[in-house]
């Protein structure tokens, strides 16, 4: 069993707004082992990014971590002094952000931005850091790296900027790299290259990775374990093959059903999840997913939220029903009715076409 690198216990991150308290992260427990890749999936606004920012204590105003523990190699992150947290960021845990277009400083040379990530910590001397910049850019496959270090971000393409971000994240050889939707802003061919790159780096350097995404394909190709988040809570967690083969929470099931899969039977329709994630300042009572759940029963609305229960080897899910208990005919109804007329219209032409092809 690998050693536990990061342990998050009962983390609550809340935003104190004029509309009330927004519970962005609401009692999250998970861990990352050394060298492991963990996927964190969920729709937009379900607390994935806030969980990651909480780990680095970078939650923006007016939010803050209200309770819970974040242990990195046994050290409590929430109690670190300013100097300790500064040295922790980028050195022990590095983060790659969503939008490579805005995440680099436009008026500083790319090489200098990578270099200062190293000189901020004591691992490399200034001279060594300067030499490593080219090496890092080469490692993330930036062509003509020697000349490119003197370029500014606007002279880089989107994919190259994301590579520069990854180089920056890896510069101190952190034990954990948090990648927040590293491929969403990129086009598909570049996405594939970045995924290949991250896979390779994980293998070569043994860096543990926490991959935040809503892209199921990315999770399938990169991760060993998956955490599914909904409305600031973890609803399912388990090894990636198990989650893909037999998801037990209806939300996970719907997420997996909502993307086309090459290996699935062609007659299966794509499922869209009805409605929107709840307003996190006024979450629904009971199970937070019940208003959108196709398999909802009375108990989901009245009883308090179900606990994370063991549903398989190393797999837990937060549901009263569980997918394996759903009747075959209900499943068929959910599959066919899930792409309702309105939803199909809303998805517009290209998405509807995919659905149509799958149906024919």
């Amino acid at each position, binding site marked *: 069993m690998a050693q536990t690198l990061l342990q998050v216990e009962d983390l609550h991150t809340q935003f104190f707004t004029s509309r009330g308290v927004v519970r962005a992260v609401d009692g999250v427990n998970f861990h990352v082992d050394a060298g492991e890749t963990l996927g964190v999936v969920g729709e937009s606004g379900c607390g994935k990014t806030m969980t990651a920012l909480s780990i*680095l204590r970078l939650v923006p105003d007016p939010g803050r971590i209200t309770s819970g523990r974040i242990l990195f190699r046994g050290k409590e992150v929430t109690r670190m002094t300013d100097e300790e947290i500064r040295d922790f960021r980028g050195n022990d845990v590095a983060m790659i952000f969503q939008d490579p277009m805005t995440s680099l400083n436009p008026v500083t040379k790319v090489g200098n931005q990578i270099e200062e990530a190293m000189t901020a910590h004591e691992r490399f001397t200034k001279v060594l850091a300067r030499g490593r910049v080219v090496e890092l850019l080469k490692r993330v496959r930036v062509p003509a790296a020697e000349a490119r270090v003197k370029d500014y971000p606007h002279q880089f393409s989107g994919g190259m900027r994301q590579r520069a971000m990854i180089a920056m994240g890896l510069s101190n050889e952190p034990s954990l790299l948090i990648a927040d939707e590293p491929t969403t802003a990129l086009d598909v061919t570049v996405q594939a290259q970045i995924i290949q790159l991250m896979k390779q780096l994980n293998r070569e350097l043994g860096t543990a990775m926490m991959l935040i995404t809503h892209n199921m394909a990315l999770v399938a190709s990169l991760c060993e374990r998956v955490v599914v988040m909904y409305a600031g809570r973890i609803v399912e967690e388990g090894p990636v093959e198990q989650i893909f083969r037999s998801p037990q929470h209806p939300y996970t099931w719907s997420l997996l059903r909502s993307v086309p899969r090459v290996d699935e039977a062609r007659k299966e329709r794509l499922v869209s999840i009805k409605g929107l994630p709840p307003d996190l300042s006024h979450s629904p009572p009971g199970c937070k997913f019940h208003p959108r759940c196709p398999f909802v029963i009375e108990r989901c609305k009245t009883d308090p939220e179900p606990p994370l229960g063991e549903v398989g080897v190393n797999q837990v899910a937060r549901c009263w029903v569980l997918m394996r208990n759903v009747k075959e005919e209900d499943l068929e109804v959910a599959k066919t009715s899930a792409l309702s007329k309105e939803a199909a219209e809303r998805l517009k032409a290209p998405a509807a076409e995919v659905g149509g092809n799958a149906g024919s």
Partner: protein
Amino acid sequence: MAVIAGRPARGALLPPQLRALTGTRSGALAIFVVRRILWMVPIVFFVIVITFTLMHLAPGSPWDKGGGRQLSDTVVNNLNIRYGLNKPVFTPWFDFSTGHFIPFRWDDQFKLYIWNVAHFDFGLSYQYQGKTVSTLLLESWPYTATIGVLAFLLIIPIGVGLGVVAALRQNTRIDYITMGFATIAASFPNFVIGALMVVAFSVLAYRATGGNFYLPAAGFAMDDSLIMPVVTLALLPIAYTARLTRASTLETIRQDFVRTAWAKGLPERLVVVRHVLKNSLIPVVTTLGPTFAFLVTGSVIVETVFAIPGIGRAFVVAIESRDYPMILGTTILFSLVVAIANLVVDVLYVFIDPRVRLT
């Protein structure tokens, strides 16, 4: 070299020897500066055209004595001949009423003035016998420029400093005090501030200390008599600069790349200096050019309140007495100051923002 359709390649119109220069950054910059300086010639020409037209459209003549005894026709005639005002103001090339070309003549007032300006001769002043406009400008401008430059030197540290501090400590007492001061400074007219300062630091301070400590209420010397005019002049631009700096810095603090900088583990000082300020001060620099031009061209009010023989007052007096050459000379000087200040800002831009390309 790629050529964008409909747009000539850079340096396409330059002779081959110069075209090679556009390849290097400093060469491109040099060509840019030279071109902008050459552009000042048509700019000044049009400033002259507009000023000349407005000046002669305004009723009255330089020899009118407001209210009092008027000069006799003979004297007016002699003066007109002496200063060339007997010549036509401007002779067109074509007469629309008759449809005939008019024989070209060089000796109308406008063309003569342009000819003289081309030879750096700005003419004789009407108000002061025998003094050239150049002499008058050289006499009065140093006073104004000294005060203006000193005021400008106050704006950079104080205006920018207050703005940055207010932004970094947003919604704290420091922020409220700074912005309260900026609002008050921006809303008080400077003749009120000037007069209040004279009362406080000259009159009351003199009385309270029995004449041991006070600031001179008027006059100009390179001593403490500069303090009050400089402060009065600088207060308003300081307030504006502080507000602009604060707004720009607050916007930058929320940018993604600042979060990246924190996530790298940079200390706060480096996050602020290298990432926040390097970006947030770009718009501030843009406004500092026009601010500098505004300051060194003088404030009539400040010069009047503190009795400084500067160019701001000279300009107003020249307008009142229809001293045409003086009006034109001052306007040309002001337009050059504005053009040069803007050129300096544009050149600075190249160094502070790598995204800017010289065109």
